[in-house]
């Protein structure tokens, strides 16, 4: 198995899917000549030419709309947003068009489109450019949402997203693009809606996704070393649909959970996960479920404040200690 960066794993998925299906094309700002703001589309213009690797003006609503139209006409567009912060401008096309076409056409018009790009905070990009849109996008019936945490999952989930006949949101991460990991070659498809245990454990379940998987893994390591606590790290991978069975199964084993996400606490993904747990695993719970999220404020620019606002292994360890009654 080759070791690839997350960025190259996405690149591989795009290339393989474009080779596999001539209807697949990539469109977005700087995806062609500049080879992607984060070099995800490196080498693709050369291989597939300007009709399938399409550079656009800075007009998110416009090219998202072109994508929706192309999908209605039978193509399989992949729309890259330079970041999901900019995609807010395109929400009308995503929410009001892409998510509704199949429904409003009475099932006649499928919408095989992928919207992808980096989500959440990087480093000191300040309040307007450091936001996680997970819960916004997961709120909408008609959309599927995936948020891979590893290079292998990035490749496998992007392939599934491109092959899906529904609009699929792929949440990537600027801080993830350089992450290295083993990636299976060729046909590696990760089904949408299936969570993955990234570290098995007995005492507490960490439910996480995307960048917070690394945070949870680090916290689990610290707890194992310092407290002898065995934490299970469950990577959701898909935010819609959620893998309820995996969540409930893990909590049934550990009786305790901490739910971690990059977004704000109010009406976050974690709130949805906790709802599932309290409903489906009520008699398995030995402690209230706690959440670790971004602080409920616009992201500070100040480096130290930014660090404090983000979910960190220390905050996860503190929450775990509380649900384990160690404090």
């Amino acid at each position: 198995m080759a070791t690839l960066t997350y960025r190259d794993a996405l690149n591989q998925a795009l290339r393989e899917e474009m080779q596999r299906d001539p209807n697949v094309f990539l469109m977005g700002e700087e995806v062609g000549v500049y080879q992607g703001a984060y070099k995800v589309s490196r080498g693709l213009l050369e291989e597939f030419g300007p009709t399938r690797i399409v550079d656009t003006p800075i007009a998110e609503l416009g090219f998202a709309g072109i994508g929706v139209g192309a999908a209605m006409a039978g193509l399989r567009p992949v729309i890259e947003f330079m970041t999901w912060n900019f995609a807010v401008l395109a929400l009308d096309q995503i929410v009001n068009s892409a998510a509704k076409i199949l429904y409003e056409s009475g099932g006649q018009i499928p919408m095989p489109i992928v919207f992808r790009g980096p989500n959440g905070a990087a480093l000191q990009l300040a309040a307007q450019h450091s936001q996680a849109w997970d819960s916004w996008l997961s709120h909408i019936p008609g959309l599927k949402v995936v948020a891979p945490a590893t290079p292998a999952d990035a490749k496998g989930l992007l392939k599934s997203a491109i092959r899906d006949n529904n609009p699929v949101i792929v949440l990537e991460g600027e801080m993830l693009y350089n992450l290295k990991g083993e990636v299976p070659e060729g046909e590696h498809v990760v089904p949408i809606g299936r969570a993955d245990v990234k570290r098995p454990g007995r005492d507490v379940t960490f439910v996480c996704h995307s960048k917070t998987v690394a945070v949870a893994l680090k916290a689990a390591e610290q707890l194992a070393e310092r407290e002898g606590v065995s934490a299970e790290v469950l990577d959701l991978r898909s935010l819609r649909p959620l893998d309820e069975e995996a969540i409930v199964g893990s909590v049934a084993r550990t009786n305790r959970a901490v739910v971690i996400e990059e977004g704000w606490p109010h009406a976050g993904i974690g709130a949805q996960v906790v709802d599932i747990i309290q409903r489906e695993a009520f008699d398995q719970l030995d402690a209230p479920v706690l959440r670790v999220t971004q602080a409920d404020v616009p992201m500070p620019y100040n480096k130290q404040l930014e660090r404090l606002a983000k979910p960190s292994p220390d905050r996860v360890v503190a929450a775990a200690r509380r649900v384990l009654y160690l404090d």
Partner: protein
Amino acid sequence: MATNVYMEALSPTMEEGRVVKWHKRDGDPVKTGETLAEVETDKAVMDLVARADGVLRQVAAAEGQTVAVGSVVAVIAAPGEAVGAGPATVPPTTTSGSGKRETGNVATVTAPAPVAVVPAPAAAAADATRVKASPLARRMAKEAGVDLKLVAGSGPGGRVIKKDLERAPSQGTLVASPAGAAVPSPVSRVPFPERSGAPYEDVPLTQIRKTIAKRLAASLGPIPHFFLTTEVDMERASEARDALNKQLGDQGAKVSFNDIIIKATAHALTKHPACNAWFQDDHIRYWHEVHIGVAVAVEDGLITPVIRNAELKSLADIGREAKELAERARNRRLQPNEYTGATFSVSNLGMFDIDQFTAVINPPEAGIIAVGSIVQKAVVVDGQPAVRRRMRITMSCDHRVIDGATGAAFLRTLKQMLENPLAMLL
């Protein structure tokens, strides 16, 4: 809103309780936590406390009456609240357990007439007696048949959590009653033959006798007992005891032979953990701590208060604790947690001139030792006849847990400890 006062399960195995004495009368104001009545459970006399503020009304169980757990025995009404008449809710009194004697020709028991009570809405009562427990703990308690009211919660605000139930013994073990149905209590209430002309006298079973009957029948029958006896030379233990008591001087309690035996047993168990175990249906629980149940004769029966972590305690501490627990056992003031959870038991009839006997295992424990009198005997020591103080110990083993050789090895260590008490210092 009126709150029902229920006959609560005040011990883990309690199914019914006898009202010994009402501390509050109809119309008395009561506060949450105040003692309403003393109730004789199958083990002890416990307090039934108020779960709400208000005025006690509609006392439905007379003193001496035995009622089932869960029955409404009174109502706590808000001051000035009218509580109307309604159907009686307390089942008819049973004569057994009323504590009164019935002679062959004269019935002396009169059943108190049930008093009308209007049951308060269940929700109010549920709130008043609410136990904080995690959902998991609730489920585990239900499955194990454990009353959560009797489990001390270690979570925030006293919440009962999984850990507390893992620590608490399962229901079957929450009962003390060991060694000796065979033990004749010196203070038992065997009827004194009154010259009343009656050919016999019937004495109803008290709660504790009922429990002893039930528990011990459940031991000797199903548990495959076997017995090992050894004779121990107590010369050096006697010398050690004399020396220690001299050392203690006037500082309160003296060290007894039983204290030395408890201490030696605890020590020997740490060296033979295979005997410090519970049989648990599908597994054996080997304990890492030694909790010794000590059989104490009480009026009408016996009970085994537990010396916890006896392996870690000094002889003086064991002596003090044993004395204090026995005292309260005789006054029937032991709390359930003081007579449950033993990992092994000791029963001593030495003071009654019993040479040796066999004790009945107190399940789920796997063993018990029965200690006889210390008597002077002529024995052969180093090829010469000598007069020595000797004592017989008989160990009862649950063969499902302990095999012959395992029990024998433990008993040999115990014998060595007693014959050379200094070994306990090692």
